């Protein structure tokens, strides 16, 4: 059987696709005469696949040969599958030719572990050196570090890439031990700490020496699998917060577990991926990064999982009704951000508009505030919205919960229809913590 570049691309993108990160954000870099490519801080999506995910980078494995045996992974050594690999020049040609046609923003390179973690990283360095130094590629490169590799090699790899990631995948040590016997918490967190330190050193060097090389200027990220193990949302979101604080990660990605393997320790292959749960975790992640929330405000030991019917911010607001209603014309930015229906853009617009005149409900509407949700939590010039009746906390809760029984704008929530609807009573019980 002859394996051509088409087959390799098919196999190596198919086995890389479960890595959800495809962002090309975090760094601005101008193009240079004699080279091709630049990088844009906001990131650019070049297409969207049939599953609605952004395609920004050519996401492939260098090879799907792997000596590890992680139970949840399609490339595990015990899986009987065709093994192939790109040569450095095949990979460079493919990247450059896709990039010239504006198909992609750059390359996302990951790999199975070939002989040893060190050997694998050496191969990846070879590929990226060819791309950067011979093809003069200035576009975005996201590279996966291999757990267990030497720090000297990780440092060299980091100088060629814009972003580096090490996937934690399983949110607890117990889960790792069961399902990824070749990885340990230590083998993942040690390089993560190394990358974090290198990034900080690099930014201080840049202050001192203008031409110092940049070490992963777009920062590092990681991924956690949701739903393969019994770990709770509380555990996941607390871990996420810790990673942002301790390792200064740029992003933590969540991936609803897609059953790809039959194993007694894993959910059966017929299990539906918990897409709505993944969506709630992303919403909570946004609250941590942009809305000034702390993980402990969102979940605790008594409420270890997110309510699937109500988003985390709304849930928080309903449990803190004593802080509402909020006067739009006086409330500080931090509190505006906590109103359901007001986002970062909306809150900034309110601050701007307040400078020239006081705001009423029709003004809020013009600024793009979602009144349908915000109305229960705000007053404008001391008044609540005309015709709005609030009899008791119960009414508000019911009203908010009812909205979620309607077909929602979030496509992810379609999975709701596969289950019986949760009733209003359930939601109230859930909100008051009686379940």
């Amino acid at each position: 059987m002859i394996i051509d570049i088409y087959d390799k691309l098919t196999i190596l993108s198919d086995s890389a696709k479960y890595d959800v990160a495809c962002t090309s954000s975090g760094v601005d870099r101008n193009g240079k005469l004699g080279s091709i490519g630049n990088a844009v801080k906001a990131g650019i999506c070049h297409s969207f696949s049939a599953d609605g995910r952004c395609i920004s980078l050519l996401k492939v494995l260098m090879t799907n040969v792997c000596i590890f045996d992680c139970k949840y992974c399609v490339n595990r050594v015990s899986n009987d599958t065709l093994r192939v690999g790109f040569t450095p020049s095949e990979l460079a040609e493919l990247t450059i030719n896709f990039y010239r046609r504006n198909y992609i923003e750059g390359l996302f390179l990951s790999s199975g572990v070939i002989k040893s973690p060190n050997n694998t990283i050496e191969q990846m360095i070879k590929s990226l050196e060819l791309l950067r130094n011979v093809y003069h590629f200035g576009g975005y490169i996201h590279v996966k570090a291999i757990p267990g590799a030497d720090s000297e090699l990780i440092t060299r790899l980091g100088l060629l890439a814009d972003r580096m990631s090490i996937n934690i995948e399983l949110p607890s040590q117990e889960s790792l031990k069961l399902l990824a016997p070749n990885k340990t918490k230590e083998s993942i967190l040690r390089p993560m700490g190394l990358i974090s330190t290198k990034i900080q050193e690099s930014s201080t060097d840049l202050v001192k020496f203008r031409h110092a090389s940049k070490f992963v200027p777009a920062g590092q990220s990681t991924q956690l699998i949701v739903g393969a193990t019994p770990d709770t949302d509380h555990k996941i979101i607390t871990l996420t917060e810790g990673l942002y604080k301790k390792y200064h990660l740029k992003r933590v990605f969540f991936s609803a577990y897609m059953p790809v393997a039959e194993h007694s320790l894993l959910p059966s292959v017929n299990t539906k991926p918990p897409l709505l749960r993944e969506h709630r975790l992303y919403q909570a992640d946004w609250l941590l990064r942009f809305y000034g929330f702390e993980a402990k405000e969102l979940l605790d030991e008594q409420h270890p999982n997110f309510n699937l019917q109500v988003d985390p911010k709304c849930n928080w607001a309903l449990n803190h009704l004593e802080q509402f209603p909020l006067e739009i014309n006086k409330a500080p930015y931090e509190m505006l951000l906590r109103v359901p229906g007001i986002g970062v853009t909306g809150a900034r617009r309110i601050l701007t508009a307040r400078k020239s005149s006081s705001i009423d409900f029709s003004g809020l509407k013009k600024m793009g505030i979602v009144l349908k949700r915000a109305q229960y939590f705000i007053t404008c010039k001391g008044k609540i919205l005309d015709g709005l009746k609030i009899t008791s906390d119960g009414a508000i809760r019911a009203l908010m919960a009812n909205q979620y029984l309607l077909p929602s704008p979030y496509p992810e929530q379609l999975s709701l229809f596969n289950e019986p609807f949760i009733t209003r009573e359930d939601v109230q019980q859930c909100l008051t913590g009686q379940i």
Partner: protein
Amino acid sequence: MPDRTDLIYAYDGSFVGLLCCVFESYAQKEIPSVIRPPGVQQSLFDTAKWIESDEHKADRVFNSIPARISSQAQELVKLGFLTCAPHKELLIYQFLRLGFTYGSQVMTMLTNDTVCALQKAVHHLTSESHKFKGFVRFSVYGEALVAVIEPKNFVLPLLSLHFCDRFRNEAFMIYDKTNSMALVYRSQKAELISVDELTLPEVDATEVEYRRLWKQFYTTVAIEGRNNPRCRMTLMPKRYWGQMTELMHD
């Protein structure tokens, strides 16, 4: 100031021309109710006042914007002119009137209908141009790259910097079918030229091969169990598909 409801200005469709309409309105102390670009159908008894383009007058208006309002307002007006907002001329004119009255404060009047409409139109323009930074698809013809787009707004001026920086050593052209314009970049120089029609030759075997590889990657990377056509449609509406390699039929 006489507010004649029937006063119509007609101008040559250029940004300079529009600024001259503003100049005329202040010089004559009159307020037009319509500012008409060329090519718009006029009614039988239409008595539009023709406003001649004059660089000097336009400069005076343009330079007065940062001086009397703010440089952000100047930027907003410049971008506003590239939008596809219906009656964008009148919108810009009314925004400037507000600006010359209230000064820099006009930029905070987000609940004012005119300010709100202009900001929305500009947001539509900038978000469309951001989308095209990703959705533009080049085909290789010999040494040159060629792409065709069908945008709603006039996005080429906004795309110019991005693509010229990215493809410094290339020669490329982006043809805007909607506005019959093309951005042409060669030998490190970019220009916008008017192009009525573009007929492209057949592509070569290498081009066909890379299209095939890209289509295959596009199909493979989607996870079947997460299929979500509605989400894709929201993020990448169908009107873009016509010019995107991965969604074209062979």
